[in-house]
């Protein structure tokens, strides 16, 4: 089983002073599958994300990422930007972090920075404008165009990202993360603030990324309709510990999960129960 895991989180603990945000958490995300990390507000989900993507150094425990070729990397030993560059883990943010003053296309070009840096001979060849650089640049634009088509934003490619509607910004951020060609895509509440139609489109996009790109996805989500529809595996957290794990159906019927949601937020618990019936 563990050989199939692209990411295995092993006894992860994160303390902030006296507060234990994540306590001895272990779970795995399977290859080419969508794993959802859910839990009430303040359960420690985003902290787990920040550990995986290198924004926090965990107090204890480890996270191992295994690539398709069997090569594995301990994520806690890498510095922030190397997690994206070497381990090929990409992420989006709970509060969208696009480059608002750059166009949608430019946002996707920045995402291909490392590949383009190599192609431009660390800028020198690019400065001289050698043909191989021009080819690489064109390829990068084509990749960006492909993603703009997939998220339905081709006609707004030359508009500033900050000018796009909220839902489009969410999708653009996912496309930007995908332009780094990641092995594991971490999405922090991708459906937050989306209406029902946009949520459905998002589910479709994520399923397409999984099947067509073969990218494994780890997502935090509060929108249970999205979680139940697309997840292959669900991990439930509360107060920094894992309280349940399994398929969406198993988790939905788990009394501990229902209790956790009831204790934290009545509406969400009802949403869980209703989506099960």
């Amino acid at each position, binding site marked *: 089983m563990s050989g199939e895991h692209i990411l295995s989180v092993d006894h992860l603990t994160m303390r902030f002073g006296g507060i234990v945000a994540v306590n001895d958490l272990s779970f795995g995300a399977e290859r080419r599958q969508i794993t959802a990390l859910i839990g009430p507000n303040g359960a420690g989900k985003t902290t787990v994300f920040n550990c995986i993507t290198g924004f926090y150094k965990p107090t204890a425990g480890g996270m191992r990422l295994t690539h398709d070729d069997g090569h594995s990397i301990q994520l806690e030993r890498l510095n922030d930007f190397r997690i994206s560059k070497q381990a090929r883990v990409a992420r989006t943010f709970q509060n969208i972090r696009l480059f608002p*003053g750059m166009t949608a296309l430019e946002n996707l070009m920045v995402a291909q920075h490392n590949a383009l840096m190599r192609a431009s001979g660390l800028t020198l060849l690019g400065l001289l404008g050698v043909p191989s650089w021009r080819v690489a640049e064109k390829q990068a634009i084509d990749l960006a165009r492909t993603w703009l088509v997939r998220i339905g934003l081709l006609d707004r490619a030359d508009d*500033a990202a900050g000018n796009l509607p909220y839902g489009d910004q969410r999708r653009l951020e996912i496309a930007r993360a995908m332009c780094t060609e990641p092995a594991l895509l971490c999405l922090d509440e991708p459906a937050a603030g989306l209406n029902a139609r946009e949520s459905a489109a998002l589910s479709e996009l994520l399923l397409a990324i999984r099947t067509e790109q073969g990218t494994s996805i780890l997502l935090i989500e509060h929108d249970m309709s999205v979680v139940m529809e697309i997840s292959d595996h669900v991990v439930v957290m509360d107060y920094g510990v894992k309280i349940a794990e399994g398929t969406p159906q198993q988790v939905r019927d788990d009394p501990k999960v229902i209790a956790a949601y009831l204790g934290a937020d009545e509406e969400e618990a009802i949403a869980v129960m209703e989506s099960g019936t």
Partner: protein
Amino acid sequence: MSANPAAPKQASRGPGAAFIFKKALISALVALVLFSLMLGVRTEAGSDGQLTYWTRFGDLAAMVATVFGGSIVMELLRQWWGPVGTIRAVPPKVTSALALAGRGVAPLLLIFTFLVPVIFYNERYILDLGILVLTYVMLGWGLNVVVGLAGLLDLGYVAFYAVGAYSYALLATNFGLSFWVCLPLAGILAAFWGVLLGFPVLRLRGDYLAIVTLAFGEIIRLVIINWQSLTGGPNGVSGIPRPTLFGIPLSPGDDGLAAMLGIEFSPTHRIVFLFYLILALALLTNWVTIRLRRLPIGRAWEALREDEVACRALGINTTTTKLTAFATGAMFGGFAGAFFATRQGFISPESFTFQESALVLAIVVLGGMGSQLGVALAALSMIGGFELFRGFDQYRMLVFGMAMVLLMIWRPRGLIGHRAPTVFLERNQAISSDLVKEGHG
């Protein structure tokens, strides 16, 4: 101003008279309090050092009356213009017209610059001013990489200017190296110092970064003053060789350029040569910057200015990205410094005070951070405009300051605040300055 937008004229005239009068009265009262001591009483030290004073109530009354009248006129003007919902600094029509004009301005300005030595061949003053303006254009473009593109507020840019100037001065006077050998060396040395400065400030943001860069600029200047054995201290370095046209000196001698071409020697030749030299250097800076913006490194600089956290999440090494921005900006500063040294023939630490850093930063901010044309226009108006106001004598600074304030009210994000995208699919449209971030560290 008016509650009913359908009938603004009538509505504003009703409560107007009392309102205007009251407002003018308050303004006059404030003026009275302010000016009663400043204008009303004049003090001076008498012949034996005792205090003598006399009153000037006439002047005071005139001032207060002016404020009172001015306030009424202002209010009437405002009503005549009609109510303004929100203060829009620039109407969209003007913005688009300016953008259109902007496309024509750059080539025209360039052609004019090329022709300046031809048109003003006999006017030494204008040629010297042109060289000065171009030096600041180049410095502005260099600092623009750091402040405008990467969003790193650098208050010590003059340090790199100084490093470039002293590099050339010392290498040329001690080892007899020619200007063309020293020019790249000065750039490399300045870039090296840029990286050296970059390292300690990598973790700093905003105000803290500004203070450390400010300190760095002062450190360089103090080292130059105190390291007497190398730099000559406050006496500076003199006898710096003049530039040669690839080995041919521009001197009256037999081996000079004039003799070689068989024309009569004139000191203006050297000035014209210097003019074209700094123009070439500035255009090189511009060309490299424009190219860099379209390369991944330039996009990473701008992305860094927009959102550093997102950059790291995309696998961009923010450390090297910041360092390359510092190094590139410093290198251009170094080139400009070497040019400065060869033009002056004498340099001393006095030329590299904080004043210079502030001036160059003002040019970048005024021009619109990140805009090449804006920086060039700002340098022209700052340096050229300052000369233009020479006729105002002691009020020069006052008029100049007021012009700056008005400009910043009119265009808070600089002359050219919008950003041109580095790559586009269909439409090359400018991005409004409201969206572009200024950077925070």
